[in-house]
């Protein structure tokens, strides 16, 4: 028998998207999570354009109106806030800044962290040492102090908030990338590339980065949740995003005094944070399995049983 005959039958040519969707459908929790996230992204994209006026129309005498009362229109179905603005509209509008801060932070931190991590992992010992010490410094720099410094010097705004949070998150990506690079560069295919004469840049970009990327993406999804909570905590301490900007984290922090009297002020944005982070976590768990050839059967095996 020839080894050709034992070749695993090739999958149909147009793979990639369709099987991924099918695998997503197998994991019902991940599927729901994906839908939830798409809805939130839609909120973020369209919400401010459609609902911005509604979300800022105050009514001091109609403040803290309770939820599930349609008398004042659909926008008040989740109640009104402490200035009589409709919670639902505000939540939808706030999705944009919330996502902007979280996504901006994660992307910025990941980009900077990954580049530094690749350099630290691949270049010589001295570069590596220097970068790692830098990471140590950032790690032990209290994030609250970074927040106060940046916001004092540059003023509170969404881009500055992203800057603050991104700085504090860089070491996570840096350390992970470096550790992975140190492992991956020992792999045979990297050595094979060296033998062929590939340059450092080519090895980093073509051979190491693609292998490291899935890990980074997984961390990024988890970090997304962390950043939303961190942003919320900074708002709670009074050194985060400030009105008139509006994020879910800020809404939770602002609803804090009303926890005993008007629970819905802090509850809905808190719930949205939990739902978003939960969805991201579930989706990232799914992704970890779906992207790992040795684990993927868990999602595919069920398909043979289902059919």
């Amino acid at each position, binding site marked *: *028998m020839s*080894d050709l005959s034992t070749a695993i039958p090739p*999958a149909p*040519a147009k793979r990639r998207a369709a099987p991924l969707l099918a695998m997503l459908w197998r994991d019902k929790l991940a599927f729901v999570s994906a839908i939830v996230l798409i809805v939130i992204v839609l909120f973020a994209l369209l919400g401010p354009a459609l609902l911005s006026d509604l979300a800022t129309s105050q009514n001091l005498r109609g403040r803290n109106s309770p939820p599930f009362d349609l008398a004042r229109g659909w926008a008040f179905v989740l109640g009104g806030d402490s200035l009589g603005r409709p919670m639902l509209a505000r939540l939808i509008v706030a999705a944009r800044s919330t996502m902007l801060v979280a996504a901006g932070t994660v992307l910025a931190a990941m980009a900077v962290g990954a580049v530094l991590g690749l350099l630290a992992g691949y270049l010589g010992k001295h570069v590596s040492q220097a970068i790692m010490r830098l990471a140590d410094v950032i790690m032990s720099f209290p994030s609250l102090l970074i927040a106060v410094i940046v916001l004092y010097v540059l003023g509170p705004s969404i881009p500055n908030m992203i800057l603050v949070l991104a700085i504090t998150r860089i070491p996570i990506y840096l350390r992970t990338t470096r550790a992975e690079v140190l492992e991956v560069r020992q792999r*045979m295919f990297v*050595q094979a590339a060296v*033998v062929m004469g590939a340059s450092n840049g080519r090895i980093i970009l*073509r051979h190491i980065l693609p292998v490291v990327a899935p890990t980074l993406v997984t961390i990024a999804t988890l970090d997304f949740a962390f950043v939303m909570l961190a942003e919320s905590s900074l708002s709670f301490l009074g050194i985060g995003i400030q009105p008139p900007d509006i994020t879910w984290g800020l809404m939770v922090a602002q609803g804090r005094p009303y926890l005993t009297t008007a629970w819905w002020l802090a509850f809905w944005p808190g719930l949205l944070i939990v739902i978003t982070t939960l969805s991201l976590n579930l989706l990232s768990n799914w992704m970890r399995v779906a992207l790992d050839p040795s684990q993927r059967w868990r999602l595919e095996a069920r398909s043979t049983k289902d059919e």
Partner: protein
Amino acid sequence: MSNALLEVRNLSVDFHTARGTVHAVRDVSWSINRGETLAVLGESGSGKSVSASAVMNILDIPPAQIIAGEIYFEGQNLLAMSNEQRRAINGKRIAMIFQDPLSHLNPVYPVGWQIAEMMTAHGRPMSEARARTLDLLNRVGIPEPHNAVGKYPHQFSGGQRQRLMIAMALALKPDILIADEPTTALDVTIQADVLALLKQLQAETGMGLVLITHDLGVVAEIADRVVVMSQGQIVEQGSVRDVYHAPQHAYTQKLIGSAPGKGQIKTLEPDLPLLLEAKALCKTYGRFTALKDVSLTLARGQSLAVVGESGSGKSTLARAILRLETADSGAAFWKGQDLLAMSPSALLGVRRQIQMVFQDPTQSLNPRMSVYQLISEGWDIHRLMPDRNQRQMRVRELLEQVGLSAEHASRYPHQFSGGQRQRIAIARALALEPELIICDEAVSALDVSIQAQVIALLDDLRERLGISFLFIAHDLGVVRDFADTVIVMKAGEIVERGPTEQIFSAPSHPYTQRLLAAALDPDPDVQAQRRLLATAQA
């Protein structure tokens, strides 16, 4: 119902995998009694280990699923028993040892504890277990048992670890011992020792031994009966001599036919121009000497084999020449220029001329690149062949040259079998039209039938394209078939060198002699004779 102590009857097991359900074994039956040795022979993917795993209740369910069949032990169907009942049999009545003792021993516990646990898990008191552990270590030949019990697996050599596994498996004097490829990862001389130990122990305890292996030599050395498996089914079974001398099934015939070490021995043509000359290469890692004063010459069209056991420095030699490692001293002249002192830009030019094929194609091919990308990467690096159509044509040619077809170009490494992957690696090496290919254990991980094909392919390339080979291997049979010159290395030094013919027929160094003596012949009669000879000498 038969009288066999252990009988597997009509067992069928499915695996649910990424690409649908795989019938791992179909309708497999075998049996064994005390005192017998049964070999289950098969190549990778033949399902030879599955029935043993089913006996031990260590199949992962899912993805595995037992579709049909029974396993009788002392007339009781194991598959109908509770987990607790089977647990009580495991280790005590039927024990098992595995291929890779380093990963099958728990890395974080002392070996003494692990051996004693075999006994405490079955209700023996700790004090008794400790005492017996010392006995066992003594019996399997571990030096200084009192010291050894407190050591961890990584502090032992490969052969010692397998001895430890054996000690553990035999702690409760089981009736059956299942050995799954027990010597595959070991050097030949150590393999011989371990097999001898197994045989002695079997003689002492009278246990039945089920030996799962891919190696005809091991079967010839130790087994009474053999079951040959292919693609999940038993294709042939019978006494070892009958099966070897008169194989009935086509698969068995092919398997026996592809065993290495039988071909025509090549001779080096004289007066070939010198291509590579290494002079006095040295390399140490801390206190460990990997290379000591190693020199060699390689001519155009020559195929030079470097033979040695693990730790002999043979791979370091290749890596030092390729500058994957920095040699401490010495020089390596490529067409008269010292590779080790070359500037990066000059080196880039030479890299095109020397290519390497690694041991494990699963790891040496970037899993995220398609075959087309893998093969054409060298052209990107060296800025060759900018024309896309030309590239596609050349990739097709190369794939066909190594026995693959053009439509494989768009696929990814994980979609191929091990042998096919090694072909891709060879095609990648050929793409840059090198003058020298360094093969570092390039066929060691492959099944024999595929090994033979790859060797034939390399041979063909050498003849047609005049490529030189530096062939690093531990398998003497393969070396005998492929090389015209052989260098034998031990502990970083070259102990013997010469034409293949001379090394195999009249080895001068005692180490070379030991190596050759320890190599197992697939013919049971030859092995039987050697055993007689050895006993006579002793």
